[in-house]
């Protein structure tokens, strides 16, 4: 009986995880560069066909391209194609597709969480910044126009789905993802960098709402399973108690009434005991 209850409970836990992941996607639907996360589930079996319910097999981001939109921000950049911006914060390297940068006091381009774009530092006298499709950054100053100050390089990974999320839109490399590989934008078949644009999250709100409803119904269905298993366990227990009680009764009667010479009665009692013993096993 407990197997049914555990299976149903594992289903409830799985749907709970599912709901949390979808809710997180929805919450970040307006964050530039955010990548939708999906939780995947797999069935659990204890040898052969003995089903033990389900378990979360993993959560991974879907790196599908989000739509690019004009944002008008003076330092906004977006990647059209694969790859990540290389960012750092207090010496730690990470990767993001969120190109919503602002100019910090030290000349670096930082996102809202303080991650600074590597390779580029805007000089103090710059009045305008341009980023070409191949990542080449030029600045205009009052004296010169189009002074080259470096190039934004992108990174890619052998297994990007194994990157570790550092919260929001920033990821760190892991042994499973492999080390970063340089990716130079602008060449044929390579990504391009869009200046003045942002990549919207690839979360579809309508789809997420639908997923929430489905997960909610699945959760309720599993709760029904727990309830049924509980109810049946209660009844089963009641029968067991009744069997033990009548077994004790019969036993005491046989002990204290050996005078029951009526053979039918004796046979009936023996049969009752046999049934009781057999059913309580």
């Amino acid at each position, binding site marked *: *009986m407990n197997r*049914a*209850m555990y*299976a*149903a409970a594992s*289903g409830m836990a*799985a*749907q709970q995880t599912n709901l949390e992941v979808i809710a997180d996607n929805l919450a970040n639907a307006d964050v530039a560069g955010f990548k939708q996360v999906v939780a*995947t*589930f*797999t*069935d659990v079996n204890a040898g052969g*066909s003995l*089903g*033990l*319910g*389900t378990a979360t*097999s*993993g959560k*991974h981001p*879907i790196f*599908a391209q989000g739509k690019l939109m004009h944002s008008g921000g003076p330092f906004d950049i977006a990647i059209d194609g*694969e790859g990540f911006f290389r960012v750092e914060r207090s010496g730690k390297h990470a990767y993001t597709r969120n190109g919503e940068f602002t100019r910090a006091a030290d000349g670096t381009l930082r996102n809202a969480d303080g991650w600074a774009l590597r390779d580029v530092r805007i000089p103090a006298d710059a009045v305008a910044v341009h980023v070409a499709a191949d990542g080449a950054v030029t600045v205009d100053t009052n004296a010169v126009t189009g002074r080259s100050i470096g190039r934004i390089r992108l990174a890619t*990974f*052998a*297994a990007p789905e*194994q990157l570790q999320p550092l919260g929001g839109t920033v990821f760190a490399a892991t*042994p*499973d*993802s*492999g080390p970063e590989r340089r990716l130079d934008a602008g060449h044929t078949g390579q990504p391009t960098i869009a200046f003045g644009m942002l990549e919207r999250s690839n979360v579809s709100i309508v789809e997420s709402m639908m997923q929430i409803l489905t997960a909610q*119904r*699945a959760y309720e*269905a*599993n709760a*029904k*399973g*727990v309830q*049924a*298993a509980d*109810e*049946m366990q209660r*009844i*089963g227990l009641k*029968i067991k108690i*009744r069997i033990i009680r*009548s077994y004790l*009764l*019969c036993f005491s*009667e046989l002990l204290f*009434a050996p*005078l029951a010479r*009526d053979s*039918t*009665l004796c046979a*009936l*009692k023996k049969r*009752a005991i046999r*049934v009781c013993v057999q*059913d309580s096993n």
Partner: protein
Amino acid sequence: MPGTLGDMDGMDWMASAMRAAQAQLETATHNLANVASDGYRRVRSTLALTPQGLAARESPDPTQGGIRETGRPLDLALLGPGTFRLSGPQGGVETRNGAFQRDREGYLTDQQGRRVQGRSGPIRLSETAVVGTDGTIRDAGRVVGVLPLPPGTTVRSGALESSSVDAIGETLAVLTAQRAFETAQKTYGAIDSARDKAVNDVGRLK
């Protein structure tokens, strides 16, 4: 234990019916729990008459699950019978869940890192590899692996096979099992009280 049907009385019958209902509940809850497991095929539970009374028999339901577009090229859905073969630390595993990815060495693996086996060993591919509908994986025109599939089965890249469990149908199965259990229990109780009367009240020695 009774050996043949003839040895079974009402109580034995009802006890076996309760056990069968319990087994059916276990199958239904296991199915329900896997309503979101990609590639999962629901387990069918049918009642059968055995020398020990009623018994629930489990068998896999070969109904195809729905195909869901994901847009990830390494998500593979099987249309037709067959499975993907994976090699894990505990030996080979078969699954219909085709949510695959490339590991850092370029091998095609599942979410848990188990390598997908082609006709001639694990499959190693680059980002640009294409999975054909016949299960042939080509990398820049070169064949890097062939999925071992039965004839007639096709592969769809960029899609996953959803669980074939229908939540409403399984909830119904949960309720049916519960009611069957209660019915058997009531009947069991009726026989029990009749027997109680026969044993304890009929011919009571005063």
